[in-house]
Each structure stands twice: as C-alpha cells, then as structure tokens.
C-alpha cells in the first residue's frame, strides 16, 4: 500500500484475462502438489474455460488447513530459500474461530493486488499513484498488532507511512480517553487514507460525536475487514460528511478482489484474481446471489483455484455500471458471510445484507445481532437510542416477521452493548441450523 511502482500492463481485455487465467490453471494443475488430484477431473484446454472450472472441485479452508504450505507451493520453487530471504512467510488469518487458516504470504504480490484494486475508484487511484500516509483502525488481531510488550507508543505503532490506531480487543470497551487518544493521533499523523473495520469506525465516530471531538478528515476512507451495516455507514457518514467512503473486498488468502467504484458497484481486480460466483440452488435463495470463488493470478508462491472465501455476492444485472468499466465481474453488493446466513420459515436463505436492509427501517436501532435457534425461532439482541427502546423493539419484531415469515417467533432482547467475538469481528447474524455450502449453492 505504501510501495509504489510503475503501473503494470493495464490492458484488461477479456481475452487477455482469459489467457492469463488459463495459463495459471494449466500450470497449477501440472506443478502444484495439491491440484494434481484435480487433474483427472479437468476436461483439458480444448474445453471452454468456464466448463473446465465447473468440472473442478471447490477449494475449501479445510483443504488449506490440511495442506499449507507445501501443498500449494510449486515444486520447482525453493521454498526454504524464499522463507530465508523474507520473500515469503506463513501468516494466520484472523477469521472467526473455526475459519482460521494459515497461508503463504508474499508481500510483493499483496501490494500489487492492493495497488491494482485501488485503480477502480478514482479517489483511491489518485492517492495510490504517489506516496501517502495511511491509518488503520481495526482489531489488533486483524492488524497483526497483538503484542506481548504492553501498550505500544504511537511511534511503535507507526511502520513507515502506516499507523495502527487501535490496541484494544473490544472496541465497545473504548472510553472517551481511548477515542481522544486515537483522534489526537489521527490529527498528528494526518493520513490521507483511513482503512477501517466499519464497526470500529462507527463506534469511534459515535463516541467522538458524543464527546464533541472533531476527527481528522482523510481524503478517502476504505472500509474492509467485515460487512458494513447501514447503521455503521450512517454513523461514519455523520462523522466524515465529505469524505468518499469506499468498500473494499478481499482476504488474507486472496488479496484484494473487489473495490467499489464511485457509483457503488464492486468491480473485480482482474490483475491478481479470477472470480466465479456459484449461485444459490433454485428454491434455496435469490439466484442472483452466490458464493464467491476466487482464483489467484500471478502469485508465484501460493496459487488458489476456485477458493471458497466464505462470502456471498449479488451479481449486478441490467445496464453496465455508469462508471464506464466494462471488464471483469460487476457485483451489486457483498451480501456477507455464508456461515452467517439465517433462514426464513420456509427454509430460504436470508443473507446478512438482506437482514441489514430489512432492519434499516427500524427507528432508533444502533446495533443488533440475530441468532436463529430453530427453523421458526429468532433471538434479536439490539441496542437503541435512549428512550426509543420500546419503539425499536416493536419495529424490529414487525420487520423481521415481514422478512422471515408470519410464523416466525421473534424474541427481542435489549442490550447495553453488543461486543465482538474473539476474532474482533461483530457477527450480525447466525443460525444454529446447519449451513452447508455444497447443498445451498450449485
């Protein structure tokens, strides 16, 4: 993010992308140990690429857990030399509990994926064309800033042109002093980009507003790490009224995959990824939504094919995006994690975004978490503006009945705060019913 280089070949024609992906696929099937077993299922290069892909299995986190690192590194590579030179290292994702995996991390490839993804939004493209300062606000687990040396000073949390703001595991435990410290550091550091977990930034924005603190206004805010609720977006918008807010989608495993353009569409970063969307089975969910399968391009140390990131996306239909970008996949919305879906009383999938959109109309709602405990039972923990709790609870009941069905039994529990999980991420919804990707998506 802070390393600059001359722009790569930016020719992103569909033909060039298809050729690059085909070559990655062929090479991976031949040279990477894990994919050798897949070779038998590959109909071969004479078959159209989409058909070839559909014949291959989906790569899962379980596969990564079982085979990283050597299973995914090319035979010819001297991995020991790569590790010794610092070119690569093994890192563990923050995930949410059972989704944690280790991956081979190649910083140079990651930087490239970030740079390429930044080209999609004009504000980011401008910033990433020159050196710039950036601050990061997320869980210390995500930022890799969990340390065993006690409280770190601002200088210790500044790496080159990057400042890590937060040191606390639970942002709901931030008090005014914490937020004042971060606000002061933002002002002093003066970042042009603020990269943030939307839930954390929303808490910071609300606390700062309540304390009458003004926050440094960067040139651009990049939201990443987890699904941004409309509640988060509103709080952020109030604190940063004139700052463009861009959602970026990616993962430690896949690099940066999608970035929002100035019209809100998520466009694919074609330079370092190929993406398939595997839609919901008929009758199980909206067929415009599917799970995101990512193949990485040009990572010499770690090739993923059809990797199930665990998230859902809604493919953009209708007219092309007004931003003018035609190449690559266009996504109308990231719909949240597959493991966080709930089901309506008829057994159809309700995505996190579907739920979030429905609850957006609840007056006074400042936070929520929905847990489905049985096919028709839902527990909603929520926080609300003072004095609006009863009205909010009533509205939540009504809205969720509309979403899940008239037979839905909805219990609302007003909370003082809703805290994140151990991973540092807030889960807006989940179901205790089994969520089996292979049964839901075709």
């Amino acid at each position, binding site marked *: 993010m802070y390393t600059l280089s001359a722009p790569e070949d930016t020719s992103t024609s569909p033909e060039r992308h298809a050729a690059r992906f085909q070559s990655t696929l062929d090479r991976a099937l031949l040279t990477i140990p894990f994919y050798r077993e897949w070779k038998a299922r590959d109909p071969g290069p004479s078959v159209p690429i989409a058909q070839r892909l559909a014949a291959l299995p989906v790569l899962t986190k379980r596969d990564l*857990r079982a085979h990283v690192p050597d299973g995914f590194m090319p035979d010819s590579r001297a991995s020991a030399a790569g590790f010794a030179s610092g070119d690569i290292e093994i890192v*563990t994702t923050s995930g*949410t*509990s*059972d989704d*944690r995996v280790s991956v081979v991390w190649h910083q140079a490839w990651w930087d490239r994926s970030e740079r390429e993804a930044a080209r999609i939004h004009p504000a980011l493209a401008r910033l990433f064309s020159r050196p710039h300062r950036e601050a990061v606000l997320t869980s210390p687990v995500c930022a890799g800033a969990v340390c*065993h*040396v*006690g*409280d770190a000073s601002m200088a210790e949390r500044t790496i080159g042109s990057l400042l890590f703001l937060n040191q*606390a*595991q*639970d942002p*709901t*435990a931030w*008090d005014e002093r914490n937020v004042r410290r971060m606000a002061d550091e933002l002002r002093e550091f003066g970042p042009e980009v603020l990269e943030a977990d939307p839930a954390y930034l929303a808490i910071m924005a609300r606390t700062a507003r309540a304390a009458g603190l003004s926050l440094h206004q960067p040139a651009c805010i990049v939201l990443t790490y987890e699904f941004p609720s409309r509640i988060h977006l509103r709080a952020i918008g109030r604190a940063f009224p004139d700052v463009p807010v861009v959602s970026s989608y990616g993962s430690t495993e896949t690099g940066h995959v999608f970035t929002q353009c100035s019209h809100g569409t998520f466009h694919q970063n074609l330079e370092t990824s190929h993406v398939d969307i595997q839609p919901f089975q008929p009758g199980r969910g909206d067929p415009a939504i599917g799970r995101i399968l990512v193949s990485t391009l040009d990572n010499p140390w770690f090739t993923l094919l059809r990797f199930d990131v665990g998230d859902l996306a809604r493919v953009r239909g209708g007219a092309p995006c007004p931003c003018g970008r035609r190449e690559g996949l266009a996504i109308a919305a990231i719909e949240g994690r597959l493991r966080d879906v709930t089901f309506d009383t008829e057994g159809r999938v309700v995505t996190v975004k579907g739920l979030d959109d429905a609850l957006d109309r609840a007056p006074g709602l400042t936070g929520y978490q929905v847990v489905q405990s049985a096919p028709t039972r839902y527990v909603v*923990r929520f926080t609300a503006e003072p004095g609006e709790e009863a009205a909010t609870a009533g509205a939540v009941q009504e809205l969720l009945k509309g979403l899940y069905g008239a037979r839905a039994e909805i*219990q609302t*529990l*007003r*909370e*003082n*705060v809703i*805290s994140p*999980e*151990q991973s540092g991420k807030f889960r807006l919804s989940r179901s205790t019913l089994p969520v089996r990707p292979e049964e839901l998506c075709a």
Partner: protein
Amino acid sequence: MSDALSRTREDFPFLRRTIDGRPLTYLDSASTSPKPQCVIDAVTRVYLEGTSNVHRGVHTIADEVTESYEEARRAIASFINAAPSEIVFTRNTTEAINLVAAGIGLQPDDEVVLPALEHHSNYLPWRLRARVTPLGLKEDGLPLYDDVEGSLTPRTRLLALAHVSNTAGVIAPVRLWADAAHARGVPLLVDASQSASHVPLDVRALDCDFLALSGHKLLGPSGIGVLYARRERLAALSLYQTGGGMVRYHGEDRFEAGEGPQRFEAGTPNIEGAIGLGAAVEWLRGLSMTAVLSHSQDLGRHLVEALREIRGVRIVAGSAPLESRIGLATFGIDAPGFSPEVIARLLCDRYQILVSGGYHCAHILHHRLRREGTLRASTHVFNTHAEIDRLLAAVKEIMK
C-alpha cells in the same frame, strides 16, 4: 394460583431422583439449585469436545472454546444489562466480594455500611479490612433499609447490601441505597446471589457500582461466579491476584496487567463453569424473567400466608409486604426439643422434602433474633404450589 412454569420440571434430571423410593420435593434452591439439561450438556460438551485452555491456545479447539467462554461472558453481561468488559469471572459471590474488598484500598478506620442480616460473604470481607456499621433490624429481622442515610459518616467508604437477603427473602430498595451512596461519592455493592434467578437484573437501573453473583444458585455449575463492576470502578480496582493470563507484558524491569476483566482472571479459569453458567442464564432468560419473578412471588405469597396461619411459626421479616418477597421464607418453629436441624432432617427422612436448617451463614441475624437457627424453604422456577402445600402439611404434622 397457577404453576405457569411447572413444565420446566422436565428439564431438570435431578428432580427425577428419589429418596427411599419416593420422589423428592426440592425446596432448597437458595442453598444451591438443580441444573437444567442444557447446562449439563454445555459442561459435558466442553469435556467431550472442547478440551483446551482459553486465551492461550493457538489451535482450532482453543479458538472454539475461547469463543464459547467469551460468549458466556456476553450472555451474562446481557442478562444483567452490563457490558461484557464489565464482567469478571470469579469462583463465586464470596470471591467476587473479596476481590472488591481487597481492591478499593480500605483502611482499618474506614466504615462499610450494610444490613445486619447480611450473609457472611457480604459481611466478613469488610470486617476483615474495615469497620462495619450494621444497619438496625425490626423485631422480626426485617432490615430498616430506609435508615441508611443516618448510618453514613465521613468515614463511610462503601455500602453493601443483598438485593434479596438469603434469610429475609425480601427485595431490598437498592436505588435508595445507590442514591445515598452516590450522594457521598462512595460505591454501592449489591450481592445478587439470591435475586439473580428470581428478579430481572439491570445494573444500570439499579445504579450499583459492583454486583456479585454465584453460578450454582443460578442453575449453573458450582465454582463459577461473577463480579460486575462499573467500567470506571473496575479500572480503579487494584489487582487481586497475579499470574498467567492476566499480564500483557512481563519483563525484567516491570510487568503490565492486561486490559478489562481479564486482569482479574489470573490462572486458568473455570472454563466449563463459565460456559455452563452462560447456558443457564440463556435458559432462564428464555422463560422471561418477568414470568420468573411473577412465579416466584406467587409461591412466596402462598408460603408466607400459609406459614402465618400456623401457630408457633415465626417468619423472618414476616412483616415485609408480600409483593416485596420472592419464593423464600425463613422461619422458626416453637417446638421444644426439636432443633431446626432436626426438623429439616425429619422433613427429608419422612417426607422427602429438602429444606435448609441452621444459621444460613447469618449468625448476626440469629443472634439478634435470639434464635438457635431457623428453617428455610426456597423455591425456584420448577416448584409448584402443590409442593408448598406438601411442606406446610408436613410442618403441621411435625408440630403436632
């Protein structure tokens, strides 16, 4: 009289056991409560599937069990309307209160104001470190709660009271005490051991600074308790114990304690206990605490009204309004030659009714009442009016 919650009996395997081949009547939940199946399952699951330490492991099972442990903290916080960062896991109420008593810098001349009938666990930790100012009692043992203001002096450092006394069974006017404490700038500690499974708890509404409770009285496992401390109070408490898990830096020069509640959770905690307690509060909350309170008050009213009719029975705090009572009554019986312990034993052996007999860790109360112990019948969600009638019939028969 309704037994709206009697269907919950099926969830308690313990209630199916017999003594001498006869079903038992359990009226001793103030001492410790039976556990619903979901709590047993939650604890068992940890042993069967989740053997790992928390906040230390770097493997899948450690991640899972840490998440379950912290989820329990969130469930308990939610149950009492606190923030998870204000919840410290302890062994029990006793340890929670000792943690506060040791952490607020009490001096021997400082004063702690409390009702005279407090349980030892909310009496001795203060007595050990400061002067205790016990509030007066009416003749029947009902605390003179309203006199709190007159008991405060410039030396008062803290007020402590049971939300529901384990002997009186009366819901205390916590807000009155909170206002009195805060007007002097001193904290209020609430012992919620007895109230937690009968009364909806809301630490914000109570406006207390500390609140302590035990898992085993709240349908959860033994050996797990909770201290709630208002955020700024928790931050100001000095360390109670040190060791693994509570430190974030330990070098040759110094050490730095971790943040939030974990700074008070040194050593490997009672993991399965916390997870079991989380399951217990979720189960109880699923019944609706308003319904739980209503059921408890129904049983309490039935119990006290009927006991009042029995000649020779004296109820502790019997003059308290019925609407302020939960399903708990402590009473003395004028039966020469029959100590409370003997009567309790008879109730068990002849009628399979389990109650408490003795001093109930409230020696000062019994001293003031000039009684060599009392009997205590205490209900929970699964108890029925028929069981209260069974107890009353047995007491009458013994008194004959």
